[in-house]
Every structure is written in C-alpha cells, then in structure tokens.
C-alpha cells in the first residue's frame, strides 16, 4: 500500500466532527406517493433525536434513506460526515439499524445470531464470539443466549434485535419504532438500554408514534407530517409553545359570563363558554402561566362560585395534535 492510499484511509476512517446526522431538502417519491417532500434534519453528535409523526408521515423512509437502503430523489443526507449516496460503504460502517421487525434469524440461537452479525462486520470468528457473549451478558440475555430465538418472547426478540445493531458499537444508531407492540415492561427495558447508549455518547435517531417515548428519551424532537418537518426543538420548548389549559366548572349557569371575564383578564386569552357543561375554558397564550391560588382568589373576588378548577399543563399529545391539525389545515388551504 502506498503512502498516499494510507493517508486517504486514515482520513476516511477518522471520526468526523460536526453533526452526526444531516438531511437537507430530501425528497423521495414511490410511484404516486410523495414519502418525503424536502425533509430537513440536523442531529448533533451524542444526542438523541425523536422523529415523531403519524403513520405514513415519512419517518420510516427518512430512516431508510439515512441507513443507505433507499436512494433519495433530491437533496442530500450525511451520516457521521459521509454522504449516503456517494459514500454508502463508509456510512454502513458507522451505523446500527434496528427496525420495526425483530430482524433476527429465528431458527438459530440468540448467541449465534450475534456471532454471525459480528462475522459479517468482519470481527473474525473468535472476536465475534467474545463480543456476542459480552453483549448478552451486558443486556441481560446471557441465560437465553443458548436458546433458539423462536422460543423467545416478543420483548426478548426486540431486545436481541436492538443488541444485534450494537455489535460494532456504532457511533450512530437508527431505531425505527423500537417499542411498537411491546408490553410496558419490555418497553421500559428498551428505554433503559437506549438511555444507557446515549450516556455512552452514541447518537440515536429514533422514530416513534408514542409521545411519551419521545418525551422521555429525546433531547430534541422533530415532528414530521406529510414528508416534511413541521416543528423542531426540545420537548419542553415545544410544550411551552402551546400553553396550558385552564378550566372552571360552575354551580350556577348565570355566572358563566362573569367567570369568562375573570379567566380572559387573568390569562390574556380568549375564554370559551360551554353552557351545557357549565364550563369555562381558556388556553393560555405561550409563556403565560396561570397559578391556581390567584385564579381562585380572583373568582372569589368576582363572586363566582366554582365547583371545580383545573390547570392542565400541555402534554406532547397536545403539541402533536395542534401541530398536525395546523399542518393539515395549511395543506388544505394550499389545495384550495
């Protein structure tokens, strides 16, 4: 090998700086379906990014583009500094992928699965075997390692599938709906594993339909709808952008008007009245906080008798529903 080639090799395998995952204006069409329409995405190295969106939003296609399984029609995508189209082999050496299925061989043991994946990563037989044992031990499958995968529970299969993507300790990990269809306990186990990996510095991109999952694991959330990102930010900021919901239930229908005036004044929002339920609600504008004692004091001062008072902080579900509703409305306007 000449000196020139050796230098190239070293540069190519050096860990690149900058974002671990980058997508810019990625478009992908399957026949008549536009799966991605200009998706932008940036994931800094060492962070966990949650790709959140309804079925068919383009989450899986985004992961498939990044994992070099699908070629984008337009736009660029880089993983660990390498271009997915031009440097696919370098990308493949830097990533791990665990999909929606338990993509392991059911007819052989868990240990053999990991052993074979190690060999396919060219660790060599002895190192691949050692690595398989190490992973089984670390992730609590040491006892089940010698059993055929077809005897595993759904949760164990998924865990093995996740571990199979860790054979080379890849710096970038893609998890496509890693807990879909799992029971709460298995889900918790996968979450713990992902957290552990993130603490070790692995960059994780995970897609999910579960807002709780994104809330717990992700440093940043990207909400995807109709093939494009419609909101990006840390979970707390996305929630702050929505505002909380304050509601007052009255004993006397006649006091609805007075209660609405109090709520509007206190929150700066526009209070809604529901006569049938004897209910007044207001969604606070972003950044405004309504405190329960102040609310009770003001209602009292206005002579309003409240049966029930509630302040509900927004969940990611509210964020998600608000955003996707908006996005659908925008699309409809565009169509009209």
């Amino acid at each position, binding site marked *: 090998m000449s000196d020139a080639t050796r230098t190239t090799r070293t540069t190519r395998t050096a860990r690149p700086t900058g974002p671990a995952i980058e997508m810019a204006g990625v478009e992908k069409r399957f026949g008549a379906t536009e799966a991605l329409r200009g998706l932008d995405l940036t994931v800094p190295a060492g962070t966990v990014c949650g790709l959140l969106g309804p079925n068919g939003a383009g989450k899986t296609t985004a992961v*498939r583009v990044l994992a070099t399984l699908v070629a984008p029609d337009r736009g660029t995508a880089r993983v660990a500094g390498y271009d997915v189209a031009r440097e696919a082999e370098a990308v*493949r050496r830097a990533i791990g992928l665990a999909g929606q299925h*338990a*993509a392991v061989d059911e*007819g*052989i043991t868990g240990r*053999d699965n990991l052993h074979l994946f190690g060999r*396919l990563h060219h660790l060599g037989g002895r190192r691949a075997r050692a690595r398989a044992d190490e992973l089984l031990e670390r992730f609590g499958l040491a006892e089940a390692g010698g059993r055929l995968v077809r005897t595993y529970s759904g949760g164990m299969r998924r865990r093995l599938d996740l571990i199979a993507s860790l054979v080379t*300790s890849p710096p970038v990990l893609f998890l496509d709906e890693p807990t879909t269809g799992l029971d709460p306990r298995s889900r918790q186990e996968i979450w713990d594993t992902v957290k552990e990996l993130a603490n070790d510095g692995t960059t994780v991109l995970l897609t999910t339909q579960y807002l709780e999952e994104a809330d717990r694991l992700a440093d940043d959330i990207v909400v995807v709808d109709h093939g494009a990102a419609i909101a990006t930010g840390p979970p707390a900021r996305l929630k702050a952008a929505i505002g909380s919901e304050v509601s007052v239930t009255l004993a006397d229908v006649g006091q609805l008007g007075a209660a609405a005036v109090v709520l509007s004044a206190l929150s700066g929002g526009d209070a809604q009245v529901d006569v049938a339920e004897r209910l007044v609600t207001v969604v606070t504008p972003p950044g405004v906080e309504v405190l329960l004692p102040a609310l009770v004091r003001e209602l009292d001062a206005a002579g309003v008798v409240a049966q029930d008072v509630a302040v509900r902080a927004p969940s990611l579900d509210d964020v998600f529903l608000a955003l996707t509703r908006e996005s659908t409305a925008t699309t409809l306007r565009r169509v009209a």
Partner: protein
Amino acid sequence: MAAVYAAPNLAGPSRLVSDTVTSMLRILLNYRHSPGLLAASLGVPVVMVVVFGYVFGSAMQVPGGGDYREFLMPGLFAMVATNGIMPTMVGAARDVGRGVTDRLRSMPVSRTGLLLGQTLADLLVSVVVLALLALVGLAAGWRVREGLADAAGAFGLLLLFRFVMTWVGTCLGLAVGKEEAAGQLSVAVFPLAMVTNAYVPTGGMPGWLRVVADWNPVSSVVEACRGLFGNPSAPGDAWPMQHAVLASLLWSAVLLALCMPLAVRKFATHGR
C-alpha cells in the same frame, strides 16, 4: 469500547470469501437446529422411490424394454436437483418479510457473498440427499452401467443444475418478498417438475405437451443422466433429447447468467 470493536475495513475478494462463509454457516446452523427439516429432505427421496418405483412402477412398461425403476432413478435425481428452488425461495422471501434483508443491506457486506453462501450451503446439503437417494436406488435395483467417470459426470451435472435452481429460487423469493406468497408460488413449481420425461416417456403425450416436456430444462438433465448412467430411456427426436448433455449445460449456463446477477441486483436495490 468503540475502538475495540470498530469493524475492519475489509474489501474485495477477502470480504467476498468471509461473507460467503458466514452466510453458509447461518444456513447450516439452521439445519442443525431443525432436524425435522433435514429429515424431510432425506425422507422425500425414499418415499419417492417407493411411491413411483413400486406403486406406479408396478403398471409401467418402458418403451424399448428395460426396468422401470432404472428408468425412474435419473428422473428422481433430477427431481431433487429441481427442488433446489424451494429452500432458497422460501428463505429469501422470509428474510425480506422479516426485515433481515434490510439489516444485512445496511451493513458493510458483500451482497454477492451473502447470496452465494446461501446457495453453496444448499449445495452441501443436496450432496448428502443425492448420496442417500443413490443408496436407496441401488437397493431398489438401479445400477450404474457405464464407467464411473460417466457416473461422476452425471452427478456433476445434477449438482450444477441444483446450484442453478437455488439461484432461480433466490430470484423468485426476493421478488415475492413474503413467506406465504413464496409458499403459494412453490405450487407453481410443481408443473415444472412434472411436465417432463422424469416419470414417463414423452412419446405418449399429446403433441403440444410433448414439445413443452422435451424442451423443459429438467428433461434435458434427466435424459443426460440416463445416458451417462447407461439406464433405459426413450428420448425421441427433439434436439434437447438428442444432445442432452449439451442441452443441460446450455440451460444451466443461460439460467445462471440470468438469475445470478438479477438476484444480486434485486437484493441490493430492494425497496429503493
């Protein structure tokens, strides 16, 4: 940890060999854990000799004379070779359906090596199956009547055809992509094996069917084996029947040249 297990940058022929061996290992491990699968592969030839040789054979007369069971054995050998379509077809479809193919494609592996390993592992298993069938055949009165070199040539031809059929199966399996669909498709393979000269001479078939049977690649292999083993036969005038060895080699070359690159391409670009 990352430093210890970073994958070496293996490329070229050494990667092809390494991935081929790993892929073979995977298939063979599957056989080891499914003794039923291996038993079925070994049991079928025995059943076939009994059913065709003794049940149907009791009422069969080979035109031009000769023992029916000796006429039948090359047909059964070719049947084993043709059945090479099944395991790779079902296996490839299962891997696509369960996401294994996607995972493999996201890894720095040789795609040719992965598929080649699966077909070579199958070839290894089929050597055992053919050997067992030969033993059962010998017990039933089948004999090698030409030289050992010719007999070796016949077995070489059978293994080549089995290898070709595993690539046809890989292609079909990757194309259908679902295990159940692959199972249904294997019903369609049945005529390929039956509309041949394997069980009965083609001379008695209606004209159009006889043309199909005479030009069926499986028939070429059967006729070539009958010639090389020195077993009774009733070939007729069709070109592939008169030049059976050449026809078998040509069919194998054409199908392999078609299916091998197609399968690798299909594997590499699945779902793009």
